[in-house]
C-alpha cells in the first residue's frame, strides 16, 4: 500500500475515532517559526491562539510547536499534528508554504491556513496582513521626526513583504521630508537578537536617528535606547515596554479575529479555501499608541492617514511612483494592483530614490 494511502486511512480512522469520542472539541494546531517569547511575530500569533482559546473555551483544544525550522522539519511537525487529530492547522511563516501544500495533500480532511504565502489548495487557505499600510504611517512619522535625515532600516530577508514595507515607509517619509535618506541593513534572519542589535548599532553609528525594523525581537529598540536620541517602532507586537524610551508607535499584527473566524467556520462546517489579505480597515493591522514624543500635529496627521487607509480613501501606493531605475511604475493617481507582474504580492524592486540594491 502506498504511504500516502496509509496516512490517509490512518487519518480517516482517527477522524472517525475522534468524532465518536469528542465530537464537540475542535483541535487546532499552530506551527511557529520562532519562540513564543520573541516579543514580536510569533508572540502575536500566539496571542491569536490564546484568543481562540478564550473565545471557544472547552469547545476547542489548541496545541503549538515553536522554533520549527522551515523545510523537512515543518512537514514532520504538521504531519504529527494531523495524525494527532487536528482539524485545523495554522502554519505561520512564509517558508512553510511548500511543506503545508505537501502535508495538505496527504490529509484532505484537515484544513490548513498558511500565513504570507501564495499557494492555495482545496484544504489550504492563505492569509496575510497589509503591513505596508502601517509602514506608510511609520514612514510619515520617521520623515517628520528625523533630524539627521537618515533613517535606518533593518530588513530580514529581501522578500516581497519586506521590500513592500521599505518602499511604503520610504515613499511616505520622502513626501514630508525631501532630504530623507534610507540606510538598509539586511540581517538575513527573522529573529536573532544579537544580530539585530548589531545591525541597529551600525545604523546608529552611520547617523541614523530613526530605526525601523522588519525583524521580530526588541533588540533594536534596546540598542536605540542605549544610544539615546534615537527613536524606533514596535514591530509585529506593540513592544510597549519601550514606551518610555525610544518606541514612539508600533505596527501590531492582530491575528485573533481572523483565527476565531476560521475556527468558527470549521466548527460550523462552512470552512472554504480562500485568500485573505486584510489591512487596517479589517482590523488585521493595528497601529500602536503614538507617544507624546511625537509632536501633536504629526500625530494628528498620522492618525488621519490611518483613517484614510482604513476606509479605503487612500492607498499607500498611489502614483506617480517610479521604480528605482527611473522607469515608470504608477501613473498620477494610479494605485498599485495586488497581483500581476507589477503587483504588490510579488514586489521585487525598490522605488525611485532608495539607494542600494536588493541583495541577490
Amino acid at each position, binding site marked *: *500500500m*502506498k*504511504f500516502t494511502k*496509509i*496516512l490517509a486511512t*490512518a487519518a480517516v480512522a482517527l477522524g472517525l475515532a475522534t468524532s465518536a469520542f469528542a465530537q464537540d472539541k475542535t483541535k487546532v*494546531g499552530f506551527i511557529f517559526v520562532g*519562540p*513564543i517569547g520573541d516579543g514580536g511575530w510569533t508572540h502575536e500569533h500566539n496571542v491569536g491562539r490564546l484568543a481562540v482559546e478564550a473565545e471557544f473555551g472547552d469547545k476547542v483544544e489548541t*496545541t*503549538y*510547536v*515553536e*522554533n*520549527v*525550522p*522551515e*523545510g*523537512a*522539519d515543518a*512537514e*514532520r*511537525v504538521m*504531519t*504529527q*499534528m494531523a*495524525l*494527532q487529530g487536528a482539524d485545523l492547522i495554522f502554519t505561520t511563516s*512564509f*517558508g512553510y508554504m*511548500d511543506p503545508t501544500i*505537501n502535508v495538505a495533500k496527504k490529509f484532505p480532511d484537515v484544513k490548513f491556513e498558511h500565513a504570507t504565502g*501564495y499557494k492555495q489548495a482545496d484544504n489550504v487557505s492563505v492569509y496575510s496582513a497589509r503591513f505596508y499600510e502601517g509602514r506608510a504611517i511609520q514612514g510619515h512619522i520617521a520623515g517628520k521626526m528625523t533630524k539627521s535625515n537618515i533613517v535606518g532600516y533593518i530588513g530580514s*530577508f*529581501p*522578500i*516581497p513583504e519586506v521590500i513592500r514595507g521599505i518602499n511604503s515607509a520610504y515613499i511616505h517619509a520622502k513626501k514630508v521630508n525631501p532630504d530623507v535618506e534610507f540606510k538598509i541593513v539586511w540581517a*538575513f534572519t527573522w529573529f536573532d537578537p544579537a544580530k539585530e542589535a548589531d545591525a541597529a548599532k551600525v545604523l546608529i553609528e552611520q547617523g541614523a536617528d530613526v530605526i525601523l525594523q522588519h525583524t521580530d525581537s526588541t533588540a533594536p529598540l534596546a540598542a536605540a535606547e542605549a544610544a539615546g536620541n534615537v527613536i524606533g517602532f514596535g514591530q509585529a507586537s506593540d513592544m510597549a515596554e519601550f514606551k518610555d524610551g525610544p518606541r514612539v508607535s508600533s505596527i501590531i499584527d492582530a491575528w485573533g479575529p481572523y483565527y476565531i473566524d476560521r475556527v468558527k467556520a470549521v466548527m460550523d462546517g462552512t470552512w472554504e479555501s480562500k485568500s485573505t489579505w486584510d489591512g487596517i480597515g479589517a482590523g488585521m493591522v493595528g497601529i500602536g499608541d503614538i507617544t507624546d514624543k511625537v509632536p501633536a500635529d504629526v500625530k494628528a496627521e498620522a492618525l488621519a492617514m490611518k483613517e484614510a487607509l482604513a476606509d479605503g480613501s487612500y492607498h499607500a501606493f498611489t502614483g506617480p511612483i517610479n521604480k528605482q531605475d527611473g522607469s515608470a511604475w504608477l501613473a498620477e493617481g494610479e494605485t498599485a494592483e495586488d497581483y500581476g507582474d507589477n503587483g504588490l*504580492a*510579488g*514586489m*521585487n524592486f525598490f522605488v525611485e530614490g532608495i539607494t542600494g540594491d*536588493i*541583495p*541577490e
Partner: protein
Amino acid sequence: MLTLEKRPQPSKAFAYLTPLIAILATMFFGGLLFMALGKNPFESIRTIFWDPLFGEFAFYYRPQLFVKGGPLILIAIGLSLGFKAGIWNIGAEGQYIVGAICGAGAGLAFYPMEAWYIFPIMIIAGALGGWAWAMIPALLKVKFQTNEILVSLMLVYVADQLLASMSLGLLKNPEGQGFPGSRNLKDYPSAFNDEIITGTGMHWGVAAAFIAVIFAYVLLNRHMLGFSIRLTGEAPRAAKFSSVNPNRIILFCLGMSGALAGLAGMFEVSGPSGQVSIDFASGYGFTAIIVAFLGRLHPVGIFFAGLLLALTYIGGEMAQGNLGLPSAAIQLFQGMLLFFLLAVDLLTNYRIKLSRKEAV
C-alpha cells in the same frame, strides 16, 4: 574525601558504558526539569523516547528517524575521520550548504528534461561542492599553517550568504512570483531524491549514510590510511617517525568530511527539503559534531548516536505538540545529553577514589 586518580589504562568497560549512563542521567535530570515545568516526568520521557518508536503512530515516526538521522550520520562519519587525526573541521554546515547548492544547481540546469543520468550528476556535483568548500581550509592549512577551526567556521557564514544569493538570484524559481527560493525538486522527477522503498523513509541519502558507516569502519580498521589517521591523532611524533605525510592526512580528512557533508546537503535539498531557500540550513552540520562525539568517533557508535539524536528531535516535537513543553526545555534536554556524556567520560580515563584526608 573524593579524589580523581588517572587510570593506567583507559577503562574499556566505561568506554562502552558512558553513553548509557549519560542517557540515563539525562532522563533523570530531564524528568526533574519537566516536573519543575509542571508536567508529568514519566509521560514526558515516554513521549520523547518511547512514543516515536512504539506509540500509536510509530509507522510514521520510525521512517522519520532515518530521514532526520541520515544526514547527521553522513556528516558525522566524515567529521570523525578528521577528529581522530586531530583535524577539526567545524564548518561542515558550510560544506553541507555548498553541496546542496551545487547538487540542486546541477539538477536544475537540466530542467525540464527528464533523464536517468541527472540524479547521479547531482550526487557528484554535491560531493564535489562540499569537497571544494572544505579544500579551502585544507589548502590554507597545508600552505600557510592557518587554523582550520577558524577558517572552516568562518566559511559557514560565507556559505550562508551564498545560499541567500542563490535563493534570490541564480536559482530563484522563475515561476515563483518574485518570492525567493528555487523550484521544488519534488516536482521534478529526474532530480527528486524519492524514497527507495515507499514508506520506509529510506531515501538515497540514508543509503549513503549506511555505506559511509561501513566504509569508515573498514578504512579505520583494515586500511593503512586509517591507521595513519589514528596514529596522527594519538601520537603525532610517532606518526612523523613512521613517515606519515601530515599534509596528505589533512587534505584527505578535510576533503572527505567536506564531500560527505556536501552529499548530505545534496540529498537533503533534493529530498526531504526539496528546495534551495534562504533558510535551508538547519544546523545539521553543527549537530553532527555532537553526534560524532556522542558516538565516540566510532562508525557504529555514530550510527546509533545519529538515530538517538534524531529520536530526541522527533520526540521533542511530539512533547511540544502533545504536552505543551516549550522548545527551550527540549533544547536543554539535548544539551544535557552532551554535558553528561562529557562529564561521565571522565570515568573512562580516571577513577574516583575515596581517600582519607592526609596531613599536609
